[in-house]
């Protein structure tokens, strides 16, 4: 109930207790059946079952388990406000300003049709931040980008609290729930894989 009044206890009870739990149990059932997928970590499992765009049946549940874990960690009680330090710098560099970023994020979330997710990702090849949307259970992991934040736009995430008022849900998320600390930590970790700044090449 820590995210009240922005995300009600009932929503979390259902979202985590039923949906998320359901995905975990289905995944375990799939994995029990045979040993083909034995020994993978969850991240690897997602990539393998995504099968380059032709997903195996385990993909949806595996990805949804990962997505929801990521989503819970993208929020915190007393969240919101602005990102800090390097993350803010990078956002301002890649989006112009934080408010531009926020506008773009909100707009993307509202124009997503059907079920899906909105992400703040660090793109590996382009070495910049970007906003991505995915449908159903797809995650930016499968095209090798590094997600920093996510927002669940499946209707079950907000219907009990906001019914069809998606705009209010997204704004509340940005104002009160999003955990910039988590995003900062993820970005710091990501920088060991992606070189964001100019490499410092010594001259003589």
């Amino acid at each position, binding site marked *: 109930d820590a995210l009240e009044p922005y995300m009600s206890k009932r929503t979390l009870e*259902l979202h985590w207790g*039923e*949906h998320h739990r*359901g995905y975990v149990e289905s995944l375990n059932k799939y994995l029990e059946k045979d040993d083909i997928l034995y020994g993978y970590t969850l991240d690897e499992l997602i990539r393998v079952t995504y099968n380059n765009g032709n997903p195996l049946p385990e993909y*949806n549940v595996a990805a949804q388990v990962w997505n929801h874990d990521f989503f819970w960690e993208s929020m915190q009680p007393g969240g919101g406000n602005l990102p800090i330090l390097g993350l803010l710098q990078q956002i301002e560099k890649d989006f112009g300003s934080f408010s531009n970023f926020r506008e773009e994020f909100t707009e993307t979330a509202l124009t997503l*049709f*059907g*079920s*899906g997710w909105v992400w703040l990702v660090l793109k590996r090849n382009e070495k910049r931040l970007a906003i991505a949307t995915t*449908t*159903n*259970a797809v995650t930016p992991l499968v095209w090798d980008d590094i997600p920093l934040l996510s927002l669940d736009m*499946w*209707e*079950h995430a907000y*219907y*009990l609290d906001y*019914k*069809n008022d998606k705009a209010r849900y997204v704004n509340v998320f940005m104002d009160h729930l999003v955990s910039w600390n988590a995003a900062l930590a993820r970005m710091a970790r990501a920088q060991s894989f992606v070189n964001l700044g100019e490499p410092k090449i010594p001259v003589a």
Partner: protein
Amino acid sequence: MAPVTTIASHLTSAFISNPEFCRLSHNLHSSQRQRRCSRKSVCGTISASIDLKPPPYALNALEPHMSKETLEYHWGKHHRGYVNNLNKQIEGTALDEMSLESIISASYNKGDILPAFNNAAQVWNHEFFWESMKPGGGGTPSGELLELINRDFGSFEGLIHEFKLAATTQFGSGWAWLAYKEHKLDVPNARNPRASEEDKKLVVVKSPNAINPLVWEYHPLLTLDVWEHAYYLDYENRRTDYITTFLNKLVSWETVSSRLEAAKNLIVEREREMEEIDAIDEMDTIEPEDGDMYFGSDADDFVDDEE
């Protein structure tokens, strides 16, 4: 928006000068005051022509299986939103003035969907959905529908099982359908050389987001909305309960039967048209003159040029 309003009001003023029309429009207004204001020349606002049709029963008529609150949101907000957004999108474009089904196939664009598709298809889907239900629904189908069900699914229980499976396994948002399918290729001159009644069958299909079987040229007979907004308020995450209740207590088999009949009539009519076109084609075929290998007089020109 402004030019459209002026045109509309010009139309209105032109008509109002005619006293006949004045009386008519007066009656129109009073009897339709309850209706949502979406007719062109009467209101002078957004003139795109898709209406928000109410379900054929009161919003609380499906209690306790589908609550009034669900219908208020589902029809009043979601469905209405699709209608309004669609009207905004098609206003002033080629899609304006087309029937809803034509808008759907035009914007489906053979899979490369245009922006209007989602809204248009969702409007159609929801109308179809409301009409697929009725208070005191459920039970079993009868007559020709039941015969076809038994033929194509083995038994009524077989159909129920398939339908439940499709609805439960539709991942994400979407719809489950019972549709009537003619076996024909998607080319204009497709002719099944040994066409028979057996080729046409009932199928259960599921579709994601806004897609519906119209785009596959099936004839939809029944649908169930498995977008989460359709059942979340009443059943939270228990989609299976929702599906079971729908099949036991809400589905209107009479509507399904009448849609089946309409589909069959449509198919028969189309076949008759094809036959007529064939007959005309036969008559028009040009027979070459004896000894003349080429049609028409072009052969002479060709020979001349060579020299």
